[in-house]
């Protein structure tokens, strides 16, 4: 065994750890010898999804199923004075009622208080209203500004609203500002974004004696199993977690969650299976979000194009939770920096990991600053980036993206100078992400005597295409087509698996799938070799045939080869080995927008997204990841915003009417440019594409109108307000 470093992910956040790895490294075929790797493979489950056969947690129905419901605080901050569940318990059809803590201090609207299970969701809803709860209201804080005021009430008991300052300093910031050719100084802010998974959080729990089966909408079946096993004092072997299909997690669905353990308790108490799926309002309030940031940014540079100094001072809030960190100065190198960050607690639902935590806001803040400073220095913003970005991949991406969008010809040399009320502009932004992966999954490949093949792994598919990727990797190894395999995933009984966070699934599971398929293939070769008068090492499998590598005419069809197996067929496992994946991706996006200066409308016209992910396993789903990331980024840039009512601390838009997510008319032309770097092995692409979009859009808006909107999202009211402030100045 050798010691190596790999990136792992815990709860959505990445960490590098040293592990023991098997000796020897794997290698992928040369690109010209790939048959399905890197090609466009439609999803194995596509027919199930388009016909509605695919079973999501929401679709699980069992005989005698009960419906669970969580009773949540309508107040931002209160102490429960009295809770009486007598009437709810007495309502016909109510089978179980749980009070979480009769003296709980609730610290946000949506905080869990009690739960119940009933024969229908209507009865559950009625019963919830029969629970008599009296509150002693406590003063709340609903914004960073309120939380920071002297004498502000505490959001959380025994904890200051403003956390410890995290400070870092490099070089000599004061001298660098003094020696700079130009400097900028501005305040920015970014909003809270909620995950808006189309399938809400939730589980279905079923007990058989002391054995628990849980269908969960989760990013980690194994985490769900282990959490519930711990909570109920069960061996892991007695808990089974299943996620056949799921409708999005984006970092908010690790572990069983409060709703998972409540559902399991309700099912145990009621002695019947219980389904507990949250509704849209609960999704917005209680199961995670991307923290907001308020920042004061100062930057300085040289006319020769160097970024020489950066000084930032920020307050960020993840509601009652932490995790509001973000990288700064992110992708650029700056010799003199002074970075101060503080986390603030307010009475709102806790943040959770959200697709590239910290990075989309960081990119918006940093890229807006880069553009403004470049303009003040009289340097082309693209040149300014080339000068200050040490990453060689991104240097190439700058060229590719700039050429595609028409940077040299289409961009306004003087921002806002185009004639007429409707103006076009071009902007750009960049991002970086880790990815990675390591030993977590065990994949099993079974070859049956009739030639059929099953590939099994516990791992779940968040919708990214993991199932298909496993099929592609195994099919490449076996010389078959992915659609000829049955890939069974999303079940803890299928073996150990990784949690899908940090874009590490593809890097963890692909090597295991390859190893498993290779092991199975070798066993098959050993059975077949004698009949061809060679040894197993002399054989290859390609295009549905098994043949002698040096004499391809000598061989047989896959089916005939498998017919030589015993009735037991072959079952071979494989786990992660080094050499097949790596980490570290770069991305650059260019956007063109049209801004109507008389209505404030920002219309995205085109996004050019240039990304690398090492060896592309499935080009179709890789591109889908980029489309999805760009859409989420656009939505963050232009629409999404969790709005809290100051006087009550309640969210006014916990729905999909006023919490606005992009629809089909807001989607521009999206050009995906995938850089192939097969020599690096596979690297995840789930998170990177969401990072640069808002930055690129914001800079394009500035290039169009010559006015900077310093607060996301860039909605019509803010554009009009910024334009009118500028007009008043002039």
């Amino acid at each position, binding site marked *: 065994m050798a010691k190596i470093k790999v990136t792992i992910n815990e709860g959505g956040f990445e960490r590098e750890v040293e592990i023991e790895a098997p000796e020897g490294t794997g290698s992928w075929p040369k690109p010209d010898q790939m048959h399905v790797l890197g090609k466009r493979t439609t999803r194995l489950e596509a027919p199930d999804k388009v016909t509605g056969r695919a079973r999501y947690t929401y679709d699980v129905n069992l005989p005698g199923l009960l419906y669970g419901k969580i009773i949540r605080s309508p107040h931002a901050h209160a102490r429960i004075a009295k809770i009486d569940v007598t009437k709810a318990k007495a309502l016909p059809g109510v089978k179980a009622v749980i009070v979480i803590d009769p003296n709980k201090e609730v610290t946000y609207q949506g905080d869990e208080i009690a739960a119940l299970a009933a024969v229908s969701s209507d009865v559950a809803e009625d019963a919830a209203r029969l629970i008599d709860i009296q509150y002693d209201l406590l003063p709340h804080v609903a914004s960073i500004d309120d939380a920071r005021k002297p004498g502000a009430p505490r959001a959380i008991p025994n904890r200051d609203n403003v956390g410890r300052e995290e400070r870092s300093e490099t070089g000599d910031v004061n001298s660098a500002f003094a020696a700079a050719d130009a400097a900028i100084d501005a305040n920015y802010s970014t909003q809270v974004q909620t995950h808006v998974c189309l399938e809400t959080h939730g589980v279905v729990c079923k007990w058989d004696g002391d054995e628990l089966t849980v269908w969960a909408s989760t990013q980690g079946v194994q985490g769900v199993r282990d959490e519930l096993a711990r909570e109920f004092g069960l061996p892991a072997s007695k808990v089974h977690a299943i996620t056949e299909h799921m409708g999005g997690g984006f970092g908010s669905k690790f572990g069983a969650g409060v709703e998972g353990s409540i559902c399991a308790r309700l099912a145990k108490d009621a002695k019947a299976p219980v389904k507990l799926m949250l509704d849209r309002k609960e999704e917005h309030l209680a199961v995670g979000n991307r923290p907001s940031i308020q920042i004061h940014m100062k930057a300085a540079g040289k006319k020769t194009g160097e970024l020489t100094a950066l000084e930032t001072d920020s307050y960020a809030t993840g509601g009652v939770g932490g995790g509001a960190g973000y990288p700064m100065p992110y992708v650029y190198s700056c010799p003199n920096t002074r970075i101060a960050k503080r986390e603030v607690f307010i009475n709102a639902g806790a943040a959770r990991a959200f697709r590239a935590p910290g990075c989309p806001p960081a990119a918006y803040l940093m890229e807006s600053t880069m553009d403004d400073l470049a303009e003040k220095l009289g340097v082309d913003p693209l040149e300014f980036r080339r000068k200050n970005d040490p990453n060689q991949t991104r240097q190439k991406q700058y060229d590719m993206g700039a050429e595609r969008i028409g940077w040299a010809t289409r961009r306004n040399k003087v921002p806002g100078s185009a004639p007429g009320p409707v103006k076009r502009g071009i902007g750009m932004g960049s991002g970086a992400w880790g990815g990675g992966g390591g030993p977590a999954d065990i994949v099993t490949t079974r070859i049956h005597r009739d030639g059929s093949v099953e590939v099994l792994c516990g791992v779940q598919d968040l919708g990214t295409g993991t199932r298909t990727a496993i099929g592609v990797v195994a099919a490449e190894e076996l010389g078959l087509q992915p659609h000829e395999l049955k890939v069974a995933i999303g079940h803890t009984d299928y073996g150990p698996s990784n949690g899908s966070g940090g874009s590490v699934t593809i890097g963890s599971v692909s090597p295991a799938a390859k190893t498993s398929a290779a092991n199975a293939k070798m066993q098959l070769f050993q059975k077949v070799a004698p009949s061809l008068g060679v040894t197993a090492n002399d054989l290859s499998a390609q295009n549905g045939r098994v043949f002698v590598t040096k004499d391809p005419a000598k061989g047989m069809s896959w089916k005939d080869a498998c017919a030589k197996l015993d009735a037991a067929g072959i079952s071979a496992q494989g786990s992660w080995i080094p050499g097949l994946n790596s980490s570290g991706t770069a991305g650059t996006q260019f956007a063109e927008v049209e801004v109507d200066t008389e209505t404030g409308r920002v219309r995205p016209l085109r996004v050019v997204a240039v990304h690398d992910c090492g060896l592309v396993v499935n080009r179709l789903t890789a591109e889908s990841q980029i489309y999805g990331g760009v859409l989420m980024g656009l939505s963050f840039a232009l629409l999404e915003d969790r709005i809290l009512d100051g006087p009550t601390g309640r969210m006014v838009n*916990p729905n999909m009417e006023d919490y606005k997510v992009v629809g089909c008319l807001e989607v521009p032309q999206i050009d995906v440019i995938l850089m192939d770097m097969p020599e690096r092995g596979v690297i995840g692409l789930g998170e990177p594409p969401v990072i640069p979009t808002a930055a690129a859009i914001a800079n394009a808006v500035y290039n169009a109108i010559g006015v900077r909107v310093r607060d996301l999202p860039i909605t*019509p009211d803010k554009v009009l307000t910024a334009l009118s402030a500028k007009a008043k100045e002039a």
Partner: protein
Amino acid sequence: MHPFQYVQATSLREAIAALNRSPDTTKPMAGGQDLLTELKERIAQPTTVVSLRGVRELRFIREGADGLHIGSMATLAEIEQHPQIRGSYAALAQAAASVGSPQIRSQATLGGNLCQRPRCWYYRAEEFHCLKKGGDRCFAVAGENKYHAIFSPGPCHIVHPSDCAPAAMALGAKARIVSATGERQVSLDDFFEMPNRNLFGENVLRPGELLAEVVIPKPKGTLRSTYAKFRERPSFDFAMCGAAVALDMDGDTCRSARIVLSGVAPVPLHVPDAETALSGKRITQEIASAAATAALKGAQPMTDNAYKVPLATTVVRRAILAAVQGTEAAL
């Protein structure tokens, strides 16, 4: 939702009878696109719901010598696709087409659209016991009022959510209202009520009454109309600001005009000053701008919605110019 008795009426007479058994606690349901959400959120808690789905005599679109008759149960999809409405009553077709999504428009009706309840986020959330629900304050005043009214006498600051109402008003529509004791016709100008007059509803319909039909007078051959709607999210949204414009043209000159705004007041807002600015004039950019400015005269923005003044000014100006051209405004 609260349990309620569900009555499927098969005739107008039956519907009226059912509505009048206990008028104060009975709600009619047309397409259900609004009422169902109110029921689910427990904002409406009727003891009886009378479905009008089976009342065939309310589902028609008919052009007569006196104009266009649209039954209150005609769907928005039917209106948006109707050749005569698209031709002679363009503002109404455009307004219907701008509502919600295709799924919603195939269920939603004209009557329901005119009588829908406000979208104010305080009104719609069960936790906020606002004025309109019998509470003691309008939460929008000290709270989040980006989408609220810039023309309201108070004490409530909703905007009326209908797109079809301003379009029908601009076209001079009347409402035929049926009750147990007979029927009455009310100009749409008088149909909607400000909150200082009617806090718990938005129009003159009283319990037991039903909006049966909308009648739009036959336009002169020279009438050009359009409905311009600015949506924060174009795919699917209520109006942030909208303007219905109907111009009676004599060549390049405007004989008379009707202009009604959406998204700015608790009722579809008729703006006579803007109309005066157009009548007798050849419509140029400048005249359209002057009319648009007149339309917004007297606006009183709240803390977060001053942007609606320049936005609505643009919407009105572009709507006027589009109407002259016989096109739809680019927004």
